[in-house]
């Protein structure tokens, strides 16, 4: 082996557990265990004096110090008003997530003896602009160069596609994690992985199953003691039940029943939870995943995909036997359980690896052709002879097999999980959102539409940029989320109905750029959507400084 490529690590930043992976010198994706030798780390943060403890210890501490522990922070990503207070300081979700990222990276650095600088972080396909931006910022606060944010199901498909290299097939990725549910249809071919459509709910995951158990335990406690007290008002009891619930959920995946002790206010009650009861109280949650799946199948049909070849189960919550059973019953095929806890991190690592090979190849081609890296990137054609030569050379230099280098040239095409549009007046002269980019369109995508001024001599056009859930062109304003605004100043004296061209450009990472142009004098505004829902400015600088100085254990 000669020169070393820059390594890019893949991090699965999960609601309940996170993990990190890289591609080893044999081209194989490997998960790096943490300092407790666990392959996944609980995404739980415990503020302990000046130190920040992340992982298993933090999770166990929740019983004793419920007010100093933060869990499930991923569910609050992109929520501007979420604030965790500790010792008079306020922490935003991005900063808390940064601690989780730091912990998995720090442990990995110690294991492999190499500094981690560049990472690919995953997020649910269903995340909107705000949540994606928050995830990226979390990585930056943790001090990383975040190379890309990729979708969890896509990552899982990459991991899956890298193992089962057979013919073309259409795969449905059913990803039920700790806090989120994603359902994605993906066309896997030997030379390309293409997402067809995606949907889900980022408030539906294993935690909801846990909550149902907690509720049940509270009721049992009330029945057995005759008390009407809401024992969840007590933070110690709440945390205690939350942990017990998760444990018993796991046990019920193996056994028919499990005993649980509920202790509160000096009283102790024993509850025996049966698997049937567990199914009964969580049935609606499972049904929601089935409804969402049907929704996606419907969308896929519109795109000409009337069938799929297999269903892959990803995410820890798919270990619950009823999930597999229900899917089999609904779709008449045996789903494949594929590396539920690790597939996402591994896929992200493979994606990172591919990025670094690409970087290297481009550098080589640039050197040979005496062009700049930017020029090569712009006109990149990986099937050209130049690239093949560079790949051979690189294989010789780095010791990675040529086949592996070439296989990294596989194309990955994702879709947008949201529609994006602007607020305009419709034919009835009412305000409505007109979607310029429709949900489930392949990214990157550029789309353009022409709109008209409403009155003569209009001074300004206010462009309200909206995010929507449906793939319809027109949607009511109240069902959309405003993610940014732009103002186009117009020259004076324009007649009514002057055309204004609005172009949307959405890149692979879900970053949106808007250009509005008035055609008569070619006035233009460019806006990169900077969401207001994430940490920015002074707060961000402070968070970065704090993160640098923090001791994460």
């Amino acid at each position: 082996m000669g020169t070393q490529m820059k390594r890019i690590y893949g991090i699965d930043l999960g609601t309940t557990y996170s993990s990190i992976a890289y591609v080893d010198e044999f081209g194989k994706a490997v998960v790096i265990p943490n300092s407790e030798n666990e392959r996944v780390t609980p995404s739980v943060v415990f503020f302990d004096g000046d130190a920040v403890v992340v992982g298993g210890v933090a999770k166990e501490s929740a019983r004793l110090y419920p007010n100093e522990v933060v869990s499930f922070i991923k569910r609050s990503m992109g929520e501007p008003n979420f604030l965790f207070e500790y010792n008079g300081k306020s922490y935003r979700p991005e900063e808390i997530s940064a601690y989780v990222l730091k912990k998995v990276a720090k442990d990995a650095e110690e294991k492999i003896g190499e500094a981690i600088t560049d990472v690919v972080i995953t997020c649910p396909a269903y995340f909107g602009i705000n949540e994606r931006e928050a995830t990226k910022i979390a990585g930056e606060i943790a001090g990383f160069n975040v190379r890309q944010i990729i979708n969890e199901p896509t990552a899982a498909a990459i991991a899956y596609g890298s193992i089962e290299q057979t013919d073309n097939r259409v795969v449905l990725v059913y990803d039920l994690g700790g806090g989120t549910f994603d359902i994605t249809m993906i066309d896997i071919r030997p030379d390309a992985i293409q997402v067809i459509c995606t949907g889900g709910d980022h408030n539906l995951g294993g935690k909801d199953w846990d909550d149902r158990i907690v509720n049940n335990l509270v009721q049992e406690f009330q029945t057995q003691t005759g008390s009407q007290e809401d024992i969840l008002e007590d933070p110690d009891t709440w945390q205690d039940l939350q942990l017990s619930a998760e444990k018993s959920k796991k046990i019920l995946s193996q056994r028919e029943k499990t005993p649980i002790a509920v202790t509160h206010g000096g009283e102790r009650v024993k509850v025996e939870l049966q698997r049937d009861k567990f199914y009964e109280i969580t049935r609606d949650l499972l049904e929601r995943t089935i409804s969402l799946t049907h929704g996606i199948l419907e969308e896929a049909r519109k795109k000409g995909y009337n069938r799929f070849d297999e269903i892959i189960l990803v995410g820890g919550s798919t270990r619950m036997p009823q999930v597999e059973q229900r899917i089999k019953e609904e779709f008449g095929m045996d789903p494949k359980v594929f590396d539920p806890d690790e597939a996402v991190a591994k896929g992200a690592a493979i994606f990172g690896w591919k990025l670094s090979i690409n970087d290297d190849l481009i550098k080589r081609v640039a050197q040979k052709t005496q062009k700049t890296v930017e020029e090569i990137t712009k006109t990149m054609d990986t099937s050209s002879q130049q690239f093949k030569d560079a790949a051979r050379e690189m294989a010789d230099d780095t010791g990675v097999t040529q086949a592996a280098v070439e296989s990294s040239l596989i194309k990955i095409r994702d879709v947008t999980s949201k529609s994006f549009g602007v607020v305009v007046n419709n034919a009835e002269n009412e305000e409505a959102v007109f979607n310029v980019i429709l949900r489930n369109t392949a990214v990157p995508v550029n789309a353009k539409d022409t709109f008209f001024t409403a009155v003569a001599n209009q001074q300004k056009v206010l462009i309200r940029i909206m995010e929507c859930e449906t793939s319809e062109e027109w949607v009511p304003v109240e069902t959309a989320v405003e993610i940014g605004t732009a103002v186009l100043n117009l020259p004076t004296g324009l007649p009514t109905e002057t055309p204004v061209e609005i172009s949307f450009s959405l890149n692979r990472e879900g970053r949106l750029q808007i250009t509005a142009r008035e055609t008569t004098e070619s006035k233009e505004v460019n806006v990169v959507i900077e969401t207001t829902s994430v940490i920015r400015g002074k707060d961000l600088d402070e968070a970065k400084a704090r993160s640098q100085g923090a001791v994460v254990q």
Partner: protein
Amino acid sequence: MDRENYYILLELDIDPPEQDPAKIDAAIKRMQANWSRLRNHPTKGIQAKNYIGLIPEIRKVMSDPELREAEAREALKVSREKEGEAFAEIDRHLALHLSKGYVSNQEITKLAELHHIEEDDIRARIKLMEEGKLAELDNQLGLRMAKGYITQEEISKLAKAHGMTEKDVKKRVNVPIRKAGSAEKIKGKSLDKSIEKVINDNLKIVGHSSLYEFLGLPETTSVELLRKTARKKEAEILKIAKKDALVTASGILAGQCSAIFRDQESRASYDISRGRSRLKDLEADIDVAGIDGKIRSQYFDILVKTGQDLGMDEAEAKSFIKNYCQKKNYAIEGQEKRKISKKQFIIIGAALVVLCVAAMGALYLLMAMQAKAEFEDTTERALQQKDPEKRIVIYRNYVAVNDPSKYTEQVNALIRETMQQMKADKEKAAFTSVDQQAKELLAAEEFGKALDLYKKYLADFPGGSQTGAAKAKIKEIENAFETYQFEELKALDAADTDQRIAAYVDYLANHPNGRHKDEVSKLIWEMGDEYYLFLNRRIELASRQENWAQAIEYCDSYIRIFDNNNAKRLSREKEGFQKRLADQKAFDAVQAKASRRGTDYDAALEDYNEYLTLHPRTTAKDKVLEQIRMLQALKYKSRIDNAQAAMRLKLSANKRFAEQKPGTVLDRKTGLTWTLLSSQEDLQECVSYDYAKAYVQNMSVGGVRGWRLPTEAELEAFYKTDNGYPAAPGLVFWSSKSNPRWADGYMAEQVIVVSVDEGVENFRLDSRKCAAVHAVK
């Protein structure tokens, strides 16, 4: 105000209201941190999310002195209302005690303790309770009528309970009265309590009282419709991008609806749970009645009535109350006797039953022996018969003649067996015949008829022994038919684009799983551009003819088949056509309306103008404007006709003037030709000098052109001499004599105007002012 009050939410002082911005800000921060902590609480999480989402709004309201003051006022009101709600419960408990005619001091003390209020407050409530007895009856009637009807029995009971006649009670009933009531019974399995809690917590957030109300359907809705609506609701919620607490809660509820309304049984569980939760009130009432460890008999009756109000029948209510009292160790006065008599009755009954059973046993043995002999004889005789129909006759006779016994069932089984055999034979024969006929039809390429034969066979013998064979044949013929049709498709003339595509689509519709499905789909796909161009020409033609409906149909015929960029383009075009079609229809309507106005041009014009105001962006604007122009012309013409007729009448006695070409008049005295009407009658308004010049230069009357402004002298000779031209008094006319740039440098042009009034001198007038003009030649 529907939302929660921010003063109350922030736990700030209300009376007097907290005004210190620092304290308010601290409270907001404290609650923000608190809600953030609760963000993932199993039961309070969604509510916390809701509150977190409210923070920007809370800050806005609480930092604006005016809004804050209004908020404080509202807070005071809300807290008073809450006190009122607390009294509702106290009143119910008081009513219970009042039923015996008075409330003891001990009871008052206990109630005061229970509700944490002063004893005097309780006494004040007792006074108020004397009023409104009819209101109570109405309340109970309402509870019973809620199910959509009321039973006669319920009316009788209510009448008795309130000491009224049934007739009087009926007067207050506004639903159908039924004879026998099947009051809803509370039996079966209820929902898990934790699920019930999840549902209730989320219903609270969305502000509904039940899943039925959440779906917007009455409780009597069929489970199928509930399920369907739930799915629809789920889909609707998914479409909303704002994932606030309301949407999250709605999502959970929609999921619960789908799970609960999946079948009758689980729906019943939900209904039962709802019923049971209502029973909690009853339990609380029993606790109050049993404050001193015993339930007086008056109380017992009232409690039973409360139970009935909740949908139980009398027996159920009694048993519920007794069970509850037993659990809580409350003694019920005067309820002990009946139990014993019931026990005795059961013992006597049991003895009688034992005796009867013994006597019947002996008789049964004797009869069994006779029956066996008869059965054996029958089967032997039947088996000697070869014809199955005759065998059946023998069996049937046995069944008809003999009393039912275990053999009867055996004989019936034999009958069934024989009949099945006959049926199978018949099926086989029919199938052979169908097979033969089909072969001939297939030889003649009559696929459809052959298929019909097998299908008819399947309909005639559902589940018969040859079903499998017939289905296989159908499949085989369908395949052959499909191949045959596919070959025909390929032979189609390439020039007939629309026929070809129609045939392909037709093929796919007829053979959705046909073997050549992919090939045909590919053929269709390949025609994407060709068909688009073909339709485009047609659409262009239809547009030229303004046949929008046709154009839409062309667009649809493409969109139905293709989903590509062309289809997208056509969808957009279609929207345009739809708008044009709608506009055209609206235009047709207004045109019809306007044409009914006849010569009332003003009304017609108003119709069109109104249309333009209502449809400012209509594509039929040009047409409307054209109509308006036409109407204005008609209106003008009609006015001119009238004015000319009036002028002719005035001139009829005056020999000096003679009309020549229509609208022109010759002044015999001067030999000059004038227009019959001056600008005053023509335009009905005065005009500026520039306008007057242009007006006469451009005018054409009776086909005559070349008009000019008259001179001062010509005007005077025309109007101000004997038999002068008729004119309204006070008019002045522009003459051709103008003095541009008046001497003192004043820029305005001055023109001599001639007054028609005797004794009024001609004078100079600023050319921008207003006068009449009369053209001369």
